[in-house]
Each structure stands twice: as structure tokens, then as C-alpha cells.
């Protein structure tokens, strides 16, 4: 019994790492701009397809990955600058709809091109599995975990040690205050939106290692990323990571011990319950308004 439980936790953590990365990339964009990107899932999808295209054109995996991330960074930067900036002072609804519409257009483009075929991203390594005690690890698990942990380390350093981190915190606290001390808030928003998209794209590539590519994978990831963010507390970086891990493990445990049908809705249930019971999540600040 314990072996089964351990196995579930291990594979849950592996999936959870992916959710954590997606949630983290959304948090980066949100922290920097205080706008939630409802089209973020489609950035994740676009990233996976971009790398797929570059690999298909004959590039080795590593340069293709790098190129894909750069493309998504530029795309995020560009859409923020051209489409979001003119309405940044407008109502929240417009911002949410704009992000959603961008994502929708991207998804439509992807479906137009690849909608009728099943495409998969070839692993750049051989899939293998090892037994450690009673628990099986796969190469996928290890690759995903290593990649995410490395990214986490880099992000942690960027946010907490470098001047960029101070900038991010300054803009998050008060955009006007940040502008007053000479920070180019607009340029900063664009760069961080791009960085969020690139990070999301990295998540998309990792996801594409374990599931086939599809234009709809964005929506699926978006809702799971939201669940992880909500659980960890909106805007909290370590919250996003821990939320993602808990979500991954919960999916596996509920799926095994209750019924497999619960795998699909764990994320929705978590989102709804957390927002009803404790809207600030595990590590977030006050999220609800009281009137």
C-alpha cells in the first residue's frame, strides 16, 4: 500500500512541477503588471508549437528550444506593447477580454494550421525507467523536475538578489511610485509580459514531452495554472510552486483512491473551494473586497 502511495506522490510531483512552472509564469506576468493574462494558456500552447516547428525545420533540440522561447518572448512583448498598453488604464473587463481575445486568435491560427492532424514533439533523449526501492522514476520525470528546479533557482535569484527583483517589487506595490522614481513602467510591463510568455512556453515544451500537441492544450493548462495560483495565493511566487505541486499530487491521489473521474475536476474543485473558504490562498495577501 505504501509503495502505491509513494508512486502516486512521485508521479504527482512530476505533473505538479509542470503546473508549478505554468503557474509561476503567470505569476511573473501578474506581479509585474497586476493584470491577469487570460490568454496565457495559449502562450504555453504557442511555445510548444513554435519549438515543434523549429525542430521540424531541422534544428537540434536545444537551439530550437531557445529560439522558441525568444519568439514567445518577443510575441508577449509585442502584444503587450501594441494591444494592452493603449487600454492599460481602462476597466478590468477590457484587459481580461483583450488577453482572452489574443489567446483566442492564436488558438485559431494554430487550429487552422495543425487542427486536423495529431502532432507530437519527439523527445530529445531516450525514455527510460528506474526502480528506486518500490517506486518507478522515468526519464521524463527527471528531465521535467531538473528543468523546473533550475528555472526556479534562476527566478529566485532574479527576484530576490538582483536589482531586477527590486524593480518588480516596486512596480507591483505602486506603479505611480515606481514611475516617480524614474522607472520606465511601460517598458518594464512589456518585458515582464514577454518573460511570462517565454516561461509559459518552456512549460508548454515540457508538457509536450508527455502529451500530444493540440491547439486546445492552452485552455487545459490555463485552468490548472489558475488552480495552482489560487491555492498558493495570487501573486506569491513560492505559493505558485507549492500550489502546483499540491495540485499535481492531489489529482493523482483523488484519482486513485476515489475515482479516476476526479482527475479532471480536481483543479476546478480546488479553485472554487479555495476562493470560497480562503480567498487569499496559502501564501497570498487579502484577495477579497468587503463592502
Amino acid at each position, binding site marked *: 500500500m505504501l509503495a502505491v502511495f509513494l508512486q502516486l506522490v512521485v508521479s504527482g510531483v512530476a505533473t505538479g512541477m509542470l503546473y508549478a512552472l505554468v503557474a509561476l509564469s503567470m505569476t511573473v506576468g501578474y506581479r509585474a503588471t497586476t493584470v491577469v493574462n487570460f490568454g496565457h494558456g495559449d502562450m504555453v500552447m504557442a511555445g510548444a508549437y513554435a519549438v515543434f516547428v523549429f525542430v521540424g525545420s531541422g534544428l537540434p533540440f536545444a537551439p530550437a528550444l531557445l529560439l522558441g522561447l525568444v519568439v514567445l518572448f518577443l510575441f508577449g512583448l509585442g502584444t503587450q506593447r501594441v494591444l494592452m498598453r493603449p487600454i492599460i488604464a481602462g476597466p478590468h473587463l477590457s484587459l481580461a477580454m483583450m488577453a482572452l*481575445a489574443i489567446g483566442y486568435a492564436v488558438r485559431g491560427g494554430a487550429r487552422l494550421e495543425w487542427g486536423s492532424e495529431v502532432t507530437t514533439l519527439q523527445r530529445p533523449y531516450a525514455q527510460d525507467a528506474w526502480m528506486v526501492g518500490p517506486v518507478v522514476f522515468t526519464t521524463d520525470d527527471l528531465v521535467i523536475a531538473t528543468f523546473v528546479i533550475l528555472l526556479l533557482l534562476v527566478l529566485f535569484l532574479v527576484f530576490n538578489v538582483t536589482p531586477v527583483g527590486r524593480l518588480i517589487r516596486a512596480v507591483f506595490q505602486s506603479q505611480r511610485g515606481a514611475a516617480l522614481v524614474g522607472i520606465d513602467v511601460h517598458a518594464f510591463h512589456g518585458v515582464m509580459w514577454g518573460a511570462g510568455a517565454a516561461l509559459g512556453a518552456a512549460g508548454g515544451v515540457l508538457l509536450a514531452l508527455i502529451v500530444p500537441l493540440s491547439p486546445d492544450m492552452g485552455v487545459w493548462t490555463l485552468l490548472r495554472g489558475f488552480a495552482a495560483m489560487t491555492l498558493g495565493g495570487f501573486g506569491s511566487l513560492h505559493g505558485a510552486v507549492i500550489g502546483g505541486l499540491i495540485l499535481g499530487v492531489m489529482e493523482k491521489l483523488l484519482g486513485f483512491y476515489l475515482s479516476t473521474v476526479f482527475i479532471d475536476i480536481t483543479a476546478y474543485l480546488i479553485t472554487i473551494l479555495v476562493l470560497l473558504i480562503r480567498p487569499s490562498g496559502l501564501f497570498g495577501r487579502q484577495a477579497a473586497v468587503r463592502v
Partner: protein
Amino acid sequence: MPRLRVTRRLFWLVPLALLPLPLYLDQYRQYVVNLMLMYVPVGIGFNVVVGNLGLLAFSNVAFFGIGAYTSGVLALKLGVPWWLTILPAGLMGALAGCAAGIPALRGVRLFYLAIMTLAFGELLRWVYIRWVPVTGGSFGMSVPPPSVFGWTLETEGHKFYVFLVLVVLMVVLTDRVLRSRFGRAFMAIKDNELAAAAMGIPTDRYILLAFAWGGFVVGIGGSMYAALVGHVTPIAFDLTELILEFAVIMVGGLGSLLGSVIGAAVITAAPEFFREWLGFQELLFGLLIIAVILFLPRGLASLLARLHPVFVDRYYRD
């Protein structure tokens, strides 16, 4: 000759002018027109919550689906004639509206509410897929041909007249709601919820009411869906459908009753023309919404409002 005074009463001419339409249209074109009519209540209900009340609620497809499934299950499993399922569909929609509105009462706002209502809609879709004995699972269920007072609506033209009556009823009732103190309370809450509460407006009650009314109207739209399409499947109530409904109210005009009607007429015809190319519709709607937000934030209704004051919304202010 006395000058004809242009008043809002003239809006009654619109449904009257539409009456002879079935004489000129073939079945398919008539079906598309019925589809437009069906999206009028769907847009109206959505617009009440998002446009007039100003809350970021993405749960509209949930109400739409509940309405369609209520009608479908009652007609198929219990043999209830379609016209008797319209009101239950609306009531179930209102109930779902209240459920979706409860988090708003707990102080969940902005994108938190958006995320939560998104999750709510997806959860319901999961129920449609999993509750096979009642909903028929992923394949959905075929709804018997709709009947009214014992007559079966055989052609699209027959459905058209019934739909027209329902749509006019929903437009008039929603107009009444928005012009009453309810509508003014929605407006106050949208402008400044804190100030509205401070003035003694019971904001909780009105928020719930707006959700319930929105859900009711959309639920009736769902019932029309069951009658029109004749087949209720979970895939019809996914996020793609949500964006279509968003396009209806954004392109028509946020917070505008007239806008919902215009949006329904303009947007819903589009998918019928582009159904051959997978993804083209998504691309088009995405770009369309982007363009509207950037260049025409108050939608097509605001263009009409420039032409003549009768088109100006009385229950929406920027």
C-alpha cells in the same frame, strides 16, 4: 402633415417587420435567422451581469447549458412538451446564476471571480459528460421535435414565430428591469460599489438578483437551443462557445440592451459561413474583439447612438 415623432415605441416595428420573413427564406437561411434570435436572450442575460452590473463573470455558458439540458431532459426523459420546459429551463438558469453569484457575495471580485466562474462552467461541463443516465454523456441526447400547445413545430418557420415571441418578451422584460430601481442599483454598483453600499443600497441582494435575472434569460436561450438544434451535447457549452457569447456583447455594445440584440444578429451568422475552415472562426472572433476593444469600446450600439438619441442607452453611463 404632422411630423412623425421618433420615439422608442417605433422599436415595436422591428419584430412586426420581421413577421413575413419565413415566406422569403429557405429552411437553412431560416435556421440561421433562428440562431440569431436564440442568441438575443443569451447576449442579454450575459450583458446584464457583465455590462450593467460590471462583474467579470465567465459563467454564461453554464447557464446556457443548464437551460438546454433542463429542456432536453424534461422533453426526452419525462415527455414534457417543449413549451412547458421553457420556464423550468429559465428557472434552472436562474438557480445556476444564484450559485455563480454566491462567491461575489463573499467578496470575490475581478479576475478571482472570472477564474472561479470559469471553473464553475467547466465543472458543469464535466457533469454533463459524466452523468450519463440523465445527460447521455459525451454524445449528448436528441431532443424530440418541439411542440407548442399540442402543435409540433415542424419547419424552421414555425420555430421562428415562437422564438420571436420569446425574444420580444425577454427584451421588453429586461428593459423593464433595467429601467426600474433594480437597473439603477446595478448602475450604482458598477460605478462604485462602496459608495452604493454607503448610500443604503443592499448591494448583495442586487448582485444576486442580477445574476439570477441573467441566468433566467440565458436559461431560456438554452431552452431555445434545445428546440432549434435538437441535439444537446457537452461540447456545445465549452470555452469556444463562451468566446462567441463574449463577442456578441462586446461587438454589440457592453451594457447595452440594443447592443446585445445587434451583437446577436451580427456575430452568430458568422460561424455558419466559416464552418469549413477549422480555426478560422476563432481567429476572426479573436481579432474582431481586439479591434472592438481598441477602436470601438462601446460596440456597434454606440455608432447607432450617434445617429439618433432614441438609440442612446438609458441605463448605462461610462
